[in-house]
């Protein structure tokens, strides 16, 4: 493997991993706090991508501003969906799962109608066009920037959960909803906050990958599924597990794609998942709950 291929794969791995972790973290938070299974999570990623396409490419706004607006819109959409559709089914995995499938169908078809069935390109922001030469390899500035931003967001999320009052409340609710509400915590508000954050993270991931790959109404399918694979591999309920699983899968995709093709890499990910489930049915860091 040449130095170019190696560094490229490394960058792609961290990029994939970072994006996956962003999406999967959002999912873990929603699942952990509300016990709601949201199969439509990938569609928020897609909406983020279209947000960037619309505000940055079509309307010509500044990239950062377009990103901010996009994620906030998607976040608010998330709150509306949470309050309107998921609220009666908190703690109830099966109905929320079915409802989320309905939401998936609606969101994807709406995007197809609004934006057409084809891919849209999002050119890179001017500051990040081009490449950097490191150790004799040409690496895309865009991808490096996305890595930095996604790692920053992950760090921000970690600090938020660990050190802010809201984050603490979220953890309390995740632990024991009844106890938390008896303690006077506003479970409704915390749930909406969780859904907002989760949707924002997914949308941000979509905004960041928009310029790198194409934007299309079906772009949420694969990352959406992969995010679930991440949390199953890592162990539902474990944030550290999500991070570790995201890194593992990111590296399989990053180092597997260039030599073997992305389909093979994905097959390898699924096989790793199945093998892990054989020996650790609760995921890498999951709790062996009855």
């Amino acid at each position: 493997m040449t130095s170019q291929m190696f560094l490229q794969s490394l960058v792609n791995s961290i990029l994939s991993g970072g994006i996956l972790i962003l999406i999967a973290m959002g999912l873990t938070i929603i699942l952990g706090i509300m016990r709601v299974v949201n199969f439509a999570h990938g569609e928020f990623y897609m909406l983020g991508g279209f947000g960037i396409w619309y505000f940055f490419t079509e309307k010509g706004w500044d990239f950062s501003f377009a990103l901010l607006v996009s994620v906030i819109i998607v976040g608010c959409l998330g709150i509306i969906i949470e309050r309107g559709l998921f609220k009666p089914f908190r703690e109830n995995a099966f109905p929320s799962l079915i409802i989320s499938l309905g939401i998936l169908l609606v969101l994807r078809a709406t995007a197809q109608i609004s934006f057409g069935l084809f891919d849209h390109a999002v050119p890179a922001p001017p500051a990040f066009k081009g490449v950097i030469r490191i150790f004799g390899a040409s690496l895309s500035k865009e991808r490096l920037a996305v890595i930095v931003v996604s790692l920053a967001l992950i760090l921000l999320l970690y600090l938020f959960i660990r050190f802010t009052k809201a984050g603490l409340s979220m953890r309390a609710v995740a632990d024991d909803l009844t106890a938390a509400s008896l303690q006077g915590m506003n479970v409704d508000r915390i749930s909406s906050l969780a859904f907002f954050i989760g949707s924002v993270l997914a949308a941000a991931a979509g905004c960041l990958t928009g310029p790198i790959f194409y934007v299309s109404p079906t772009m949420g399918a694969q990352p959406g599924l992969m995010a679930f694979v991440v949390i199953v591999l890592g162990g539902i309920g474990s944030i550290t597990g999500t991070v570790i699983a995201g890194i593992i899968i990111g590296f399989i995709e990053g180092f597997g794609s260039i030599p073997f093709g992305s389909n093979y890499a994905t097959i390898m990910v699924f096989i790793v998942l199945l093998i892990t489930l054989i020996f650790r049915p609760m995921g890498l860091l999951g709790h062996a709950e009855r």
Partner: protein
Amino acid sequence: MLRDKRAKIIILAIVVFLLIFPTITANKYYLRTIITLSIAIVLTSGVRLVAQTGQLSIAQAAFMGVGAYFSTLMILKLGWNSWVCFFLAGFVSAGIAGIVGFITLRIKEIYFAIATLALNELFRLIWVEWDTLFGGPAGIVNIPSPGPLLGVRFGSVASFYYIAILLLFATMAVVIRIEGSRVGLIFSAIKGFDTLAASLGINLMKEKVKAFVIACFFAGMAGDFFAHLQHFISPVDFTLMDSVYYLMYAVVGGLQSVWGPVVGCTVMIFIPVALRLIPNYDPVIEPIIFGAILILVMRFEPEGLIGLFQKARPGIRRPQEDA
């Protein structure tokens, strides 16, 4: 519901009607619609059977594909007899389901649902990537109609029609028998009360795998049938979305009753047909309508259309989850 004399007569009437239908009309469109409907009901019944043990399978289409590819390869590459493959497809599909089920049915229900999603994709990718064996994205063409059986030639739409409805009757017979026997009772006991069931000595995983294997057996047979019917299969015939749709039909129809899949499939397959009669109708909005129906059903009548009917007539209902 089968105890009801009236219900038995209605069902018998429908069976007889279906059997003589092709003699009434030679309209291929009608025959094909019922074929499509039959296949959908077979697969949806599988989803429902697995749901009776408290699990959600979103991979029925993938197992249909397993049966389809297996039969196709055996017939085209090894020259095996179509009718033998018809049944073997079921067993192969069931066997793989057993292995997968053993791995994934061990812990929380949500893990299994996600694993079935991943399985759909995994199979699709294998069919796409391993193109020397499975033909890749282009699929496999020139699948012949099944050979003659007992002197009867197969190839016309009517002949496929009869295979389809016989497969449907067989599936329904099995599902109805399960429902009325101890097997179904144990399945339902597991659905909402697994700890209690386990404390009485019920091996949860064994029962769940049982249901999953049966469901995938019929999915495999349906896949074999599909391959012969279309004479051509490719990975896009067995996607995740198809599996989602079968789940949707099951939920809309009603998971509690064996007739849920029948009602669900019939309604959901005829809605697009009816919609297309509207001028200027663009099928692109179909998923939105389906999504909306799914959300409305879960929100207002989680037991589906059958649940709505049952509210009108009380009586001993099938076991449900503790409210």
